[in-house]
């Protein structure tokens, strides 16, 4: 069976699955699942670029999603007039200046050899510069943060701009962080990148969770506005409550699909051309690729940044859609591991596979809880009838089943389709 036929059949099967689930859960629920799964598809596309094309390990996807979420919160949440009317902006401005001054100091220390300071002394000066920069920055940011949280409006609020701008900013922010991380780690070995990304994403989580003045931390921010009409907006126009959710979500879905389609088209075109050929060469044999004139480190950085952009945008879309930014709700299992399963099961190195995997795994992930609950209820009823007694605490048991089901899915997939359900196609005509 050709790959195209097989993919077509798989997508048809997926469509049937969505229809069945939609029939069981109702149109409002399935439209919600659709929006989220297509947003995850964007993130999976990002990982597919990094891992499928570039062979780069990114175990810090969660951090990129969080950055995207923080970005869209900041851009699209309404302006906090109390903050802007207080001393807060000025104090933050000073803290920013302190930060810049600190960077200049460190930058200068790294070039101390021009002043004749060499070797051990240079290291000493650099460490000293870091310490001084840190102290200077903290001396400004600490009072600013304390002031904002108490008297300056609680937190900085947003800018009140269009959410789509926030999504783009999410991509930019993720790109910036990916650039710095990649710049530091990629020259070494790609395994170091894996370790670094885990650390970075935990740092991002810790920061966003604790910088209450910026993100409200565990207090969470809501409601974050939608780029498309909300259910409430439709209700105001006389649409019934039940229908309003469906139509509003379908409107949001349309926007997500447009963005996914654009990203997919761009990525697909790049991968089909000389750029993709170069990337596959680097992945196959980076020593030979370097000897054939390809700047391996720079290209890996490019791929890492590009993938992170899509993750940032996807993370921003998810937050917009849920209307709440809760830094405490991010978990590596939901926001890193899940994406990896999507790409591995779907087919690393194939964009259709990544999208397919995202849709399949997300819906499996979301329905395994209710399905497990139904199955357990049935078994429990039957065992009670024959006198063996029922299953205790079905609710909490069922919610643990998601991870179990995911584990089973990935095991089966790796056994029967180790390269994914829609694997990378090796092109035969150049």
């Amino acid at each position, binding site marked *: 069976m050709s790959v195209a036929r097989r993919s077509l059949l798989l997508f048809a099967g997926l469509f049937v699955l969505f229809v069945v689930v939609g029939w069981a859960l109702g149109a409002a629920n399935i439209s919600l699942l659709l929006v989220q799964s297509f947003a995850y598809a964007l993130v999976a596309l990002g990982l597919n670029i990094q891992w499928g094309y570039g062979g780069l390990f990114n175990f810090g996807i969660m951090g990129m999603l969080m950055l995207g979420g923080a970005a869209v919160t900041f851009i699209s949440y309404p302006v906090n007039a109390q903050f802007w009317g207080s001393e807060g902006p000025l104090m933050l401005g000073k803290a920013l200046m302190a930060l810049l001054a600190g960077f200049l100091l460190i930058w200068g220390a790294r070039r101390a050899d021009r002043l004749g300071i060499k070797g051990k002394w240079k290291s000493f000066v650099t460490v000293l510069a870091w310490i001084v920069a840190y102290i200077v920055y903290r001396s400004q940011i600490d009072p600013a943060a304390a002031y904002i949280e108490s008297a300056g409006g609680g937190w900085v609020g947003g800018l009140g701009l269009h959410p789509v701008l926030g999504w783009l900013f999410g991509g930019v922010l993720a790109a910036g962080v990916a650039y710095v991380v990649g710049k530091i780690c990629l020259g070494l070995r790609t395994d170091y990148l894996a370790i670094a990304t885990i650390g970075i994403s935990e740092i991002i989580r810790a920061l966003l969770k604790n910088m209450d003045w910026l993100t409200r931390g565990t207090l969470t921010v809501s409601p974050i506005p939608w780029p498309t009409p909300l259910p409430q907006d439709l209700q105001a126009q006389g649409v019934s409550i039940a229908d309003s959710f469906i139509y509003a979500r379908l409107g949001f879905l349309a926007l997500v699909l447009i963005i996914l389609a654009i990203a997919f088209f761009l990525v697909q075109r790049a991968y089909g051309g*000389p*750029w993709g050929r*170069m990337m596959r060469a680097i992945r196959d044999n980076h020593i030979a690729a370097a*000897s*054939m*004139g*390809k700047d391996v480190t720079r290209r890996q950085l490019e791929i890492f940044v590009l993938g992170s952009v899509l993750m940032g945008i996807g993370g921003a879309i998810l937050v917009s859609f849920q209307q709440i930014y809760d830094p405490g709700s991010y978990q590596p299992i939901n926001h890193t591991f899940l994406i990896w399963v999507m790409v591995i099961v779907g087919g690393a190195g194939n964009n259709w596979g990544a999208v397919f995997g995202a849709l399949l795994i997300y819906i499996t992930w979301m329905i395994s809880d209710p399905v497990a609950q139904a199955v357990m209820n049935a078994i429990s009823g039957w065992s009670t009838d024959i006198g063996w007694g029922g299953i205790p605490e079905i609710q909490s048991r069922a919610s643990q089943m998601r991870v179990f089901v995911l584990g089973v899915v990935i095991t089966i997939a790796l056994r029967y389709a180790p390269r994914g359900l829609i694997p990378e196609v090796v092109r*035969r005509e*150049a």
Partner: protein
Amino acid sequence: MRGRGGVSFDAVIDVQNVSKRFGGLRAVNNCSLRVERGSITGLIGPNGAGKSTLFNLVAGNIVPDEGRIFFDGQDVTGLKPHQLFHRGMLRTFQIAHEFSNMTALENLMMVPSNQTGESLIKTWLAPGAVKDAERHVRQKALDVIDFLKLGHVKYELAGNLSGGQKKLLELGRTMMVDAKVVLLDEVAAGVNRTLLQDLAANIERMNQELGYTFFVIEHDMDLIGRLCDPVIVMAQGEKIAEGPMEEIRANPEIIEAYFGAPVEAA
């Protein structure tokens, strides 16, 4: 600027007192040698003499512990392989480094540098220009692949090619772009005799017509004798002799170094 032995020796590669240790082993030991511009210089020596290591040092794949390397008059010690490639230094690997999940044709097509389509922006915004450039690259690759008589496997994955075919592909990559110097590490090993004659003829042609300099590691003394002048002999990480092949062949010390025991005159 030509002429061996004279003051006007024009070295395109100049290795000065270079050493490389792997743990306690001195793979290259205070080695100095020069490759004259426009020559086909041979490099011979017993297994483990440090020949491939020297190539790796010259091509930037590894960095010397001591000493300096000059390419085209400039100090290139510590430069990366891709930087040296852009200055015109191409190499093959002794153990074929093919891109195994790409077709033979793609293996060649990836080589030219600064291809229009290697830029994301141009790929997205100027697909027409990318397509044009791609047509040229493809034609060039097809020419090379025909020359190497690999036409029947051009759409085969490089990883599935035979050992000799992979070797040819290695050589083919160096023919995809204009080079100043080509380092060939046992490129003939495993290649059939008839094709070998073609290859040798082509190396001579590229040398004479295009002015390429070749630096060639080979164990096949006949090939070395036919192609190379001068020939450099390495043993235990050092250069022990240099001269035309007849001289080298006649030198009993070298024969001893090479074969480990003096060879009786037959």
